[in-house]
């Protein structure tokens, strides 16, 4: 079957598993799942050619809801797992899913170095500015005055700007999307997956349970007023005035992806075992 025929034959439903999501009704992550399956169908990729890797959190449950290869890993370590997978199986399309806690707190260091290393994979962070799964603690993107029983008076700590960090650390594609526009998010995903190297997408995805105020995001997001650029300095200047609600592709870089010359996917298992005998 040609790629064009494959694309016509693929339906988003083909990428859904039989596992019923347990996200709260209204959670933005339902829309993100929809964007994943729409993007995979648009790419016309067979599910067994895609691996969805995640850490821990409500957002990180997403691999179970697709029928691609999946790995629901350790908190904050999705990028390390994904990097290992991609260098040994470069034929797979690797999509990494994370949350603002998973990806920016415990996994923050991996984020920096994954951007630097520029392995060809797509990193999606579903940012709800809270730890949803553990019941509402502030995360690195939470506003300093988020005043709740769990953070009385707010943290007073300056939030992290994920796009600035991604750009400064060398990500080769940087974008922001909004869960409530699943087709537009799917389009950005398609572009990010096709773009060589490390692609980063921050998806604003409301947590309706612990951040009901985020339902307002629907009326706050807007298409970014400027086209994407391949000039990192220009992208950085744009971020200086970014209020966090501009949606679209910010930066498309041209760095060559990192792919080490050693692929071990077809290595002889017995030989590998011998190598690791203590």
């Amino acid at each position, binding site marked *: 079957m040609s790629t064009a025929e494959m694309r*016509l034959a693929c339906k988003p*439903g083909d990428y859904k598993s039989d596992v*019923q999501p347990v996200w709260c*009704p209204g959670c933005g992550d*339902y829309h993100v799942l*929809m964007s994943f399956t729409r993007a995979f169908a648009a790419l016309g990729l067979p599910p067994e050619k895609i691996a969805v890797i995640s850490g821990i959190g409500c957002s990180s449950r997403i691999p179970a809801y697709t029928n691609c290869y999946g790995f629901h890993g350790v908190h904050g370590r999705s990028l390390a797992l994904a990097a290992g997978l991609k260098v040994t199986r470069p034929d797979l399309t690797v999509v990494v899913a994370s949350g603002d806690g998973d990806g920016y707190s415990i996994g923050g260091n991996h984020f920096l170095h994954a951007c630097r290393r520029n392995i060809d994979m797509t990193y999606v962070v579903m940012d709800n500015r809270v730890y949803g799964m553990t019941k509402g603690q502030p995360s690195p993107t939470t506003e300093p005055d988020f005043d*709740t029983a769990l953070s009385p008076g707010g943290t007073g700590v300056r939030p992290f700007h994920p796009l600035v960090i991604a750009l400064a650390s060398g990500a080769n594609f940087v974008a922001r999307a909004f869960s409530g526009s699943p087709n537009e998010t799917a389009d950005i995903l398609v572009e990010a997956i096709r773009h060589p190297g490390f692609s980063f997408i921050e998806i604003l995805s409301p947590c309706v349970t612990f951040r009901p105020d985020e*339902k307002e995001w629907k009326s706050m997001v807007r298409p970014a007023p400027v086209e994407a650029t391949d000039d990192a300095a220009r992208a950085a200047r744009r971020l200086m005035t970014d209020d966090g609600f501009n949606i679209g592709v910010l930066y498309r870089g041209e760095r060559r992806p990192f792919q080490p010359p050693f692929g071990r996917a077809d290595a002889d298992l017995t030989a590998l075992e011998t190598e690791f005998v203590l």
Partner: protein
Amino acid sequence: MTQATPEITSLPDLLAVAWRIEADAVERYQALAAQMETFNNAELAAVFRDLARAEGIHAEEIRRMAGDLDVAARAREIDPWRSGESPESADLAEAHYKMTPWHALQLALAGEQRALAFFDHILKTATDEAVRKMAAEFVEEENEHVDLVRRLLRRHREPSENWSEDPDAPVAQD
């Protein structure tokens, strides 16, 4: 969610897109029913299953009207929702685990109104006579659906302002 308005120039395309609108609505109501089942809201799950069934009947009627045309395949080729969402599909972001049948019917009403606006737009902009004639039929039908949901809504009292308050909230956030 923004609404999509693909350009429709032939009767088969209109039938395919109309079928797709209903099929998308079925899928969305089924997803909402499953969410409500997961959250032990059986009453609401039943409402969403009924809505899915009703939309399924409409989808089947359109498929019959289309005769030999493979509406699903044609809809896939047209890919009508490249941007925006299928008009009749309920907005997932409006769901809540403590929502009531009144809220579910409000979602249904909004969906029917979007579908009505969609076909009305085709009626007003199409140049092909067969497309206009069929669009007029769809407008009439969608008007009936809007009336039906409004009648159903009269059976339910609007919930009080604090309907989403949970005496056993997930965590104290005050």
